[in-house]
């Protein structure tokens, strides 16, 4: 048997074991419920608008609630991923796996594939849920929904890769979760702050605030490549504006981002080792 066959076998088994553990856990169902409740709230507010104004001027009203559901699910999986390596290292079970025919590549890829399989389940549930919502609200099930679900898969891959990367460089599961939350809070906070500041006309800003806005603009150019959430944002914008090239660019960028982070995760995982 070749090393590749051994790797694939170990990857499949690790992914299967993790998937079983996630499916039998309660977290995934809580997150899915929250995602659907939030999406329903969004849909309901659109329906309320229609009942109040008699019309809703949106090309695809289900895109925003779907974006929220996908965003939340991706964050949850990212958080789970940030725990993967460090938690198993903390528990010592990682060491036992490595006594046998498992290497860092098969382990990291096993963890990654498991998270993506879970996200695949998320997508399926989202598909059913939004098809049902489209049917009962008469909003229509547009192709945009399929495109957004498709791009969300690649974007989720980059969020998961980001989580795994943090997990590979930290010493404890507590530290990796803390870092993940910190980074996500920063990315979301930055996005919100930047958008707000950009929305204010120049004449209403002091000189200091204009300099700050310029500095944030430079920072945004870095963050748009570092933050996995930016890829989701770009993908969603491409879908909303029906930009085919934007869509494929977002897919390609997400994939490249994911591959680079997974390779870095394997590198750092090798350096840190499997011992507690």
């Amino acid at each position, binding site marked *: 048997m070749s090393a590749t066959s051994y790797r694939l076998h170990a990857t499949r088994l690790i992914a299967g074991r993790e998937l079983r553990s996630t499916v039998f856990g309660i977290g995934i169902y809580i997150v899915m419920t929250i995602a659907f409740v939030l999406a329903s709230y969004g849909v309901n507010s659109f329906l309320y608008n229609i009942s109040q104004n008699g019309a809703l001027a949106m090309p695809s009203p289900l895109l925003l609630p779907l974006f929220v559901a996908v965003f939340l699910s991706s964050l949850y999986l990212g958080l789970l991923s940030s725990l993967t390596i460090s938690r198993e290292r903390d528990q010592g079970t990682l*060491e036992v796996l490595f006594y*046998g025919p498992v290497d860092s590549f098969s382990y990291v890829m096993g963890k990654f594939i498991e998270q993506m399989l879970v996200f695949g389940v998320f997508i399926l549930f989202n598909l059913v849920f939004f098809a049902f919502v489209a049917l009962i609200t008469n909003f229509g099930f547009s192709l945009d929904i399929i495109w957004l679900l498709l791009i969300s898969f690649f974007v989720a891959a980059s969020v998961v890769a980001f989580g795994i990367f943090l997990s590979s460089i930290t010493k404890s599961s507590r530290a990796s979760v803390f870092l993940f939350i910190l980074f996500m809070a920063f990315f979301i906070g930055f996005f919100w702050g930047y958008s707000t500041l950009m929305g204010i006309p120049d004449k209403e800003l002091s000189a200091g605030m204009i300099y700050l806005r310029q500095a944030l603009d430079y920072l945004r150019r870095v963050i748009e490549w570092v933050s996995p959430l930016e890829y989701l944002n770009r993908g969603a914008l491409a879908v909303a504006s029906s930009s085919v090239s934007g869509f494929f660019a977002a897919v390609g960028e997400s994939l490249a981002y994911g591959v680079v982070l997974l390779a870095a995760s394997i590198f750092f995982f090798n350096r840190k080792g499997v011992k507690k």
Partner: protein
Amino acid sequence: MIEIRGLTKRFGQLTAVDNLNLRVEKGEIFGFLGPNGAGKTTTIMMILGLIRPTSGSVRIFGKELSEDYFGIKKRLGVLSEYQYMYDEMTAREYLTFFARLYQVEQGEKRVQEVLERVRLRDRQDELVGGYSKGMKQKLGLARVLLHDPEILILDEPTSSLDPYGVREVRDILLEEHERGRTLLISSHLLSEIERISTRVGIMNKGRLLAENTMDELRRRLTQEVTITVDLESIPDGVVDKLRELPNVVSVETVPVSRDGAGAGMSLVIKTKPGAERRAEIARVLSSAGAIILGMRTSEMNLEEVFITITENNISLLAEEGVA
């Protein structure tokens, strides 16, 4: 089977393992001993490729791990000191997972066999999280045996077991040895190691101080051999005759009281180590008309050998010009 050359591991200023050279031959039970912090576990981790050495090499089955990582790992069975398990799994699920990982043929059947062997078959559907330390240790051993490895590397394999468990595990290890398996056992239970090891290595402060059979280590460390002979009475002149024997260092008479058999005498004879003296002593005593009730030789046990070597940091390998 395992060949370690010039293995060194430094953690900053601390040298955990210092230029270690060691061979574990096929089919032997190698007792790997040393006080806490001697570098045993670090050595085992380097053998398994889980800690990268600062310098030196490890060859298993004649190859470095990087040459055939998966092939070598599949032929090793490793039990660590602490049992890290998936607590949410049952024992059967846990072993089935590892049977699949090692691609064991007829995995389910094999799982039942090893569970039977460690006497956990009745408890196989219980969650591992509810197992006692001893049960986890046995389950860990079951995992080690699952894929029928050629080399078993065991770190404190009996540390959490009761005396029955210790005997069960010892029997299993001896069975594996009889089947031609190679065992590398690190343990603090020196009496266990003494019972089953064919060779021992003693480490201290990162250095291997001794590596030999128990008999040879004893021979090297023993200054005098004490032979105690219980006699009904001591005939006149026999003590002087014994003192005249070559290699006899001293002879003392010690009165002893024996339960229900009245008083008697014992001779405590100290000889130089080396050749067997008991036959010669028995001949002298018999010819003098003494009635021998018992004779015993006091030898250094492994504990004494271990303490002598590690307390004084004596390198028997340096004497041999190995280190």
